[in-house]
């Protein structure tokens, strides 16, 4: 889905990113971890097409992203920035409906996509509420519904019905980029959001998100990337990456690692206690 090769970026003389290579396949959930100021956001912006790298290329569905038109890009990848402030009275369905803007208007299809996205993120009961009146967790889910709605193609309906249980790699469903989707949420909501993302990956979306919580990363992702000093420090399954020595190397802290009791099927979850 996404292939980035040899990405380098610098501000003036300060090197932010150096020779980053990464691959995000369909139906995969990757989390990007690392300390603040290690280049996570810059990498995120480059992968989403917001910024151009000094060298290297990012391919989306085998096409260079800066060669794509804005619309083409928007139909294949959607982005949820860290915070979303809306100063105007918009209702929940209007916010989700914005996800349809890269497409030709089609009232009937649009309605289905909007409803489906709201169902997947469990916000159908909020449809007519004003966005500004919602709680933090609800707002996040509305925004996720919006970026999800942006990737829905007209053939999606059948696919979701047929393959909702097992991961289906051959359907290129588009990539979701989320910058710290769980910050400022309570523990329960963090898990709720991550479960939604996990489900989306299971039905074929590619998901790339920045997290700060290693527990969540371990529980829900397929692959974990750790960024340090603008380079990929480690890249692998949670089991390979969430290790005592790596945590110590990156954060300089002593951590004990416990296997999580409710690791998801086929999963490899770890839990950290300090």
């Amino acid at each position, binding site marked *: 889905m996404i292939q980035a090769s040899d990405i380098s970026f610098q501000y003036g003389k300060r090197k932010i990113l150096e020779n980053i290579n990464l691959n995000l396949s369909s139906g995969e959930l990757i989390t990007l971890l690392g300390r603040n100021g290690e280049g996570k956001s810059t990498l995120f912006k480059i992968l989403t097409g917001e910024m151009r790298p000094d060298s290297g290329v990012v391919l989306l569905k085998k096409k260079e992203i800066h060669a794509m038109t804005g619309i083409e*890009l*928007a139909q294949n990848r959607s982005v949820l920035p860290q915070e*979303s402030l*809306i*100063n105007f009275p918009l209702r929940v369905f*209007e916010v989700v409906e*914005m996800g349809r803007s890269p497409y030709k208007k089609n009232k009937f299809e649009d309605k289905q996509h909007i409803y489906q996205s709201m169902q997947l993120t469990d916000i159908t009961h909020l449809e007519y509420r004003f966005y500004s009146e919602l709680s933090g967790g609800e707002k996040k889910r509305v925004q996720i519904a919006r970026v999800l709605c*942006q990737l829905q193609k007209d053939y999606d309906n059948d696919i979701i019905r047929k393959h909702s249980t097992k991961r289906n790699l051959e359907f290129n469903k588009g990539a979701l980029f989320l910058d710290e989707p769980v910050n400022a949420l309570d523990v329960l909501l963090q898990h709720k959001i991550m479960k939604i993302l996990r489900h989306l990956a299971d039905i074929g979306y590619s998901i790339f998100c920045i997290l700060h919580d290693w527990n969540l990363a371990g529980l829900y992702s397929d692959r974990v990337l750790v960024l340090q000093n603008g380079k990929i420090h480690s890249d692998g399954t949670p089991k390979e990456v969430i290790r005592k020595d790596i945590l110590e190397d990156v954060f300089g802290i002593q951590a004990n690692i416990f296997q999580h009791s409710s690791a998801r099927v086929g999963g490899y979850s770890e839990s950290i206690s300090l």
Partner: protein
Amino acid sequence: MKELIFYIIILTLLILMIPLYLTQGAVDIHLMDVMGEFARTNSESADWGAQIFWKVRLPRLVLSLVCGSGLALAGAFVQGIFRNPLVEPGLIGISSGAALFASFAIVVMEEWINQLFLLQIFSFLGALFTSILVYFLSRRSGKISVLTLLLMGIGINAGIGSLMGLMHYLASDSQLRAITFWGLGSLSGASWEVVLVIFPFVLLLYISIPILAKGLNAFLLGEKEAFHLGFNTERLKILVLLIVCLAIGAIVSVTGIIGFIGLVVPHIVRIWGRANHFFLLPASAILGGFLLLLSDFFARILVTPSELPIGILTAGIGAPLFIYILSRRIKEEG
């Protein structure tokens, strides 16, 4: 449904207002006299009434509708781009630039002021000059930051304030009075020629409604979000600034500064509960036209046979309304 009710209410009020506006004033006109032109009663007063009707009242009615809708639309566009409901076109220096150039014309070129629309041309140039200045000052590596634009606007406005002070200082008493009157706005310059000159600029705003509404809706979520949704945000910002500058420049050059319409009208529409630009923009245009017509009606009849500067009325109604809206917001946010 709610939208439809809004349109029906405003359009009904507007239709009721039009005959009232046309007949009342320094000279009361009987519509029968005007309509009865073919079966002329030959009375001199009827002829006189018809003259005023066709050459003064009617163009003024059209002018106030065009200017009101233009001001309100420009306000709605700018608020959308700045993602801030408390912004109006004047904040990026458009009106103050026009005012400065107009007072310059009044003070320095007094003899020629009434020829060749000199005052109008100067204020139009002033509006364009300052907005271009603000635009280029806010540009960094090909991009304009909306926040910088706003701050630059404040800076430029402050600078112009000082130059305006200088103009006031240099002006004679009668010039000073002319400057003040210009700054308060008036539609008394109305004529068919003026309407024809302004209309194409305001038409630009009308035409842009269906083209830009979708992008402006995405802007409500945030500039970055709009970009990620596939919109060319730089082009959208430039287009909006361009059409707003041209339209406001043209309007201000004829009417002087008419405050608060651009700020308050989109606000009232939003209180109706819809921020969607496919409704907000046309609704603002209609409501703006109606409110300016109403204000001008009172400006003409309150102190007949003289008339009040219209800015006194729009600000007089607009300011309390604005304070009310703000305090309600503060209350809501606790």
